[in-house]
């Protein structure tokens, strides 16, 4: 189901992602910007994004299987916080359409 995130919602998600990362890596939230590299700068890993999805699933009504999101990420790798946020927006906004996209591409 398609939905459109408002600028306020996007801002809120951005802040929540920063808070999640700041808590996880025990650093000041202000140190995290869109350009921060999740793996090289923060010492993160590929499971991190899936953990965030788990955290945000209920609040943002994400019904997609983590497996599907993983498949999406295979073709759309995430390196920076900015890319993480954009992918989060895509997942929330496109919902099931993401599966169709994957099917068409695959």
């Amino acid at each position: 189901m398609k939905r459109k995130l408002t600028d306020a919602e996007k801002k809120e998600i951005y802040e929540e992602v920063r808070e999640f990362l700041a808590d996880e890596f025990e650093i000041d939230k202000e140190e995290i910007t869109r350009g921060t590299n999740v793996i090289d700068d923060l010492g993160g890993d590929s499971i991190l994004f899936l953990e965030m999805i788990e955290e945000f699933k209920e609040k943002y009504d994400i019904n997609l299987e983590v497996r599907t999101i993983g498949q999406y990420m295979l073709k759309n790798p995430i390196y920076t916080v900015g890319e993480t946020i954009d992918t989060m927006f895509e997942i929330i906004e496109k919902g099931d359409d993401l599966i169709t996209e994957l099917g068409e591409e695959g």
Partner: protein
Amino acid sequence: MANSTYKSRNNKPVAVTGIGMICPLGISTSECWENMLAGKSGIRKITKFDPDECITQIGGQLPDDYFALEKENTPKRLFKQTVRATRISRLCSREAIEDSRVELDKIDLNRCAAIMGTSGSSVRSPDDLGGPGTERFKIIREMINAAPAWISIDYGFRGPTFTVSAACASGSYAIARAFDLIQSGAVDVVVASGVDTLLTENSVKRGNFMKMLSEQNQFPEKAMRPFDRKRDGWVISDGGCAVVLESYDHAVRRNADVYAWMLGHGSLSESYSLYAPSPYGEGMVHVIESALDNAQISGEKIDYVCANGTSTAVNDYYETIAIKKVFRKHAYDLLISAPKSMIGHSIGGASAISFAVTALALKTQKIPPTINCEFPDVDCDLNYVPNAMVRANGLETAISNSFGFGGHNCVVVLKKSL
């Protein structure tokens, strides 16, 4: 087809250039070593868990300041993704690498390896929880190859990294594999470690059922008494040790400070029993002779034996017999000591610690004692360096014994100088 990564296979000695150690007597090599030379015991009443339902209520717990060290050096996310055995292995490996002064930015990391020996603490320490959010990392936390994998990531090692498991001989098996890998020409540097954290309620109960643990709860520091007539078994400890091994050429080229040179090893199976050594130390004789043969050195050249010395009636009796059979008259000239008398038995960690103790003894010309040798056993009549360390000027060559459940035996031969 020849593997292009293999340089020339050789029989040159392998250098021991770095040591890192965490055991009940300390959280660094120097602290552990000083306490061993002072003949201190790290055995105390168990507080790690409530031992009320266990017959044995004493153990070799890590020093209290270990936990501050671990917290300081383990980021929250890494903590969730690792078990304590992995964290100990990482800390020991870091100390060993720093101690070796090998400059990682100047060497070929494709030719660096990490090998860990463990009896499987990661899946056998169910109470070793990492706090909230841990469960989702269960697979990567508990896989027994996690520690060498982390070390490969920590330092960029791209050579072979893997875990071996051979019960109480796991650490020395890891070191033996490291030796073989270096002599094969495949790698220049290996960080080899042995670690276990099996001081758990489950392990103590099972150990009590098998009647292998000491029940001397009233005198924790007196419980481990290898080769003493009143020995009644061992106590379980947590701990580990990592060593840096380097090829002869690599160590000489960079003018490394060498603790000792590893000349060879014997790694053999008893093919007898899952828990008992073969009668009268037959398997022990076999592996010691194999090690001497592999090192191309005669028994008369050995000065010191770092004994397996588990404080069980059987091991210490058979180990004594085996030493007499191999070394004959020379057995009575040997200095023999059992570090487990002071630190308990950390299973996979123990044999790596013994290896390091042997290297340290050669380097410093000091031999730590076997403590609690108070009541002579007529069947154990060799020089076990009782109760006080000895200075051994001229100490040149030594072996380190480890005999594991399952009949996994490993003996390594070390020499001070070439």
